[in-house]
């Protein structure tokens, strides 16, 4: 079981996390944060294997992970 | 206290160490090389650091770093080198970092010559870099004064959180005179504001030479302006020599000042009431010393500078407020003002009546 936590206010919608996720867990959602960015979200949390590639790739340290 | 015979540059360097300076970075340029050379020998002996920078630009920025880490630091150079350091001096003033910059002035502009001159008056007193900052700027007339002012410079630097400039002309830097050196100061603890790692402080320190916003920058400027204002009330230093009854008053500083002193003595021997106003700080400038002259008695002010065109004369004019005519005796290019030229000029004015 892996838990991804997004600090959505820090997300700038660059899409790096979406691109590197090997299991297509993530997407850029429709919601908009205070800075006006559509932020990343987890669509298929049950598919997450906790590889941390999304968090490593995220420039803005948006994603923290529990396993 | 014991008097010792020392060269100007070396006396300044030794005094700086006694005043607590523990970091020096500099770059070779004549006529100030004795200062970095002395520091390279003397600083390590007291646990200090000497670095020969790859340029004046690097040297003054090393001083910026050492000062940011809370150590009393200085650099020295000569006119063209000070132009290069002006970037760093502006940053030191912007960040309000205690430090000392010594300019052993030579002739200019451009490469000029390596001989003594006073062509850097405006630069030293008003614009040692961009951004409209000020420093206290000392212009010693003797080596003892150079020693005393160097000691004082570090006290003021710490008191004001600001760089201080000492601007001896090349003559003062090069001559030897007996001096009495001050005692070694105890090195203070690293100040709270220094950037050395936040440790147990509980907050971070950020040393920066500009504001993050327009409002912050204006606040920085306003706070600095208050400091500069205070100097004009409290820190003006000037020597008035036989001005009480003088009819001919010389305005001169540094080497020109000491030469004028001899001229005053000789003219008085010849029955001419001469006097001298010798600024010791050119920033803040002693305007009142000129303002307070009795214009019903003083016939002429004679501005004597080793600078062509004259520079300090602009400040003298502001002090005199047009009430007394001003004449000049000037030299430049590294030519030292001659006492005989000053006397000749004065006697000519006396003859004119």
């Amino acid at each position, binding site marked *: 079981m892996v838990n991804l936590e997004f600090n959505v206010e820090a997300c*700038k919608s660059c899409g790096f996390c979406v691109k590197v996720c090997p299991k297509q867990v993530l997407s850029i959602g429709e919601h908009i944060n205070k800075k006006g960015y559509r932020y990343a979200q987890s669509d298929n949390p049950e598919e997450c294997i906790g590889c941390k590639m999304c968090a490593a790739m995220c420039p803005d340290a948006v994603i923290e992970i529990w396993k | 206290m014991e008097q010792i015979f020392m060269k100007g540059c070396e006396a300044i360097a030794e005094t700086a160490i006694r005043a607590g300076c523990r970091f020096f970075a500099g770059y070779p340029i004549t006529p100030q090389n004795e200062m970095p050379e002395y520091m390279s020998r003397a600083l390590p002996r007291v646990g200090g650091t000497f670095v020969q920078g790859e340029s004046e630009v690097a040297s003054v920025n090393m001083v910026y770093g050492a000062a940011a*880490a809370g150590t009393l630091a200085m650099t020295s150079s000569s006119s063209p080198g000070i132009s290069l350091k002006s970037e760093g001096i502006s940053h030191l003033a912007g960040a309000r970092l205690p430090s000392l910059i010594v300019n052993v002035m030579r002739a200019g502009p451009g490469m000029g010559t390596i001989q003594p001159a006073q062509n850097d008056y405006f630069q030293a007193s008003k614009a040692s870099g961009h951004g409209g900052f000020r420093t206290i700027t000392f212009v010693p007339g003797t080596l003892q004064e150079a020693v005393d002012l160097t000691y004082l410079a570090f006290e003021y630097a710490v008191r004001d959180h600001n760089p201080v400039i000492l601007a001896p002309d090349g003559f003062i830097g090069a001559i030897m005179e007996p001096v009495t050196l001050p005692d070694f100061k105890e090195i203070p603890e690293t100040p709270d504001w220094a950037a050395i790692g936040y440790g147990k402080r509980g907050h971070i320190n950020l040393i920066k030479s500009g504001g993050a916003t327009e409002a912050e920058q204006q606040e920085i400027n306003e706070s600095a302006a208050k400091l500069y204002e205070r100097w004009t009330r409290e820190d003006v230093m000037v020597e008035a020599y036989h001005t009480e009854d003088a009819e001919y008053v010389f305005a001169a500083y540094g080497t020109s000042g000491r030469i004028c002193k001899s001229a005053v003595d000789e003219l008085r021997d010849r029955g001419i009431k001469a006097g001298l106003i010798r600024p010791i700080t050119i920033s803040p400038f002693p305007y009142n010393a000129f303002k307070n002259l009795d214009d019903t008695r003083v016939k002429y002010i004679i501005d004597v500078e080793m600078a062509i065109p004259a520079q300090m004369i602009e400040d003298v004019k502001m002090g005199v407020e047009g009430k007394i005519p001003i004449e000049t005796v000037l030299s430049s290019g590294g030519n030292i003002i001659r006492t005989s030229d000053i006397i000749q000029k004065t006697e000519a004015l006396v003859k004119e009546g």
Partner: protein
Amino acid sequence: MEKIYTRPNALNKSVSGYCPGCMHSTITKITAQVIDELGIGERTVCVLPVGCGTLGALYWNLDMVISAHGRAPAVATGVKRVSPDSVVFTYQGDGDLASIGLSEIMHAANRGENYTVLFINNSIYGMTGGQMAPTTLVGQKTTTTPGGRNPDTDGFPMKMAELIAQLTSPVYVARFAVNTPAYINKAKEGIRKAFQNQLDGKGFSLVEILSNCPTTWGMSPIDTLSYINDNTLAEFPLGVFKDREEEQS
């Protein structure tokens, strides 16, 4: 549950001022992780440049000194020489380090100053709006090379890691990228080594990290990832150019 990826403490809680997808953020983050992992935050001083890297002033949870453009290595020399127990690093872009600050970096490296230099090379002046840098690729369009960088008049990209590795004093000089998770992990290890060298009193370490500038490159953040792969890496090979430790072993 165990936390397996954490935002580092060497960064504060605010959102960085860097553009979306800017790898300044990535490099800052992994450096902050290294500082956390080495447990050196409380005695670290970050010497910031002039350029986008200056924005780190709002972001690092460390003591900082902002230096004049290009002068960070000189400023860091002053800090480290008077406070040798502090862990000092400069964080400089390519305009800052390779152009206006070329003299300062070369001589600091040559003196073997015992600090760490992080050199962020994105082949362009970002803060000022996308002008040519010494590291701009041949043919790359910038606001001052509208027809692309022409080597006949503008010269070729300067390879700072290779240049500095030629000097005798530096102990570790390497180049990394951060456009894939694997590269990021390697870069982080290089940064760690560059800090460890300083902690061990070994001397000067420089880590060059290839970065991007989506804004002035005029492409989406995602597109910069492949641009680095296809173009930047072809000009700036990754690798360790000098490692005193390996030379001795």
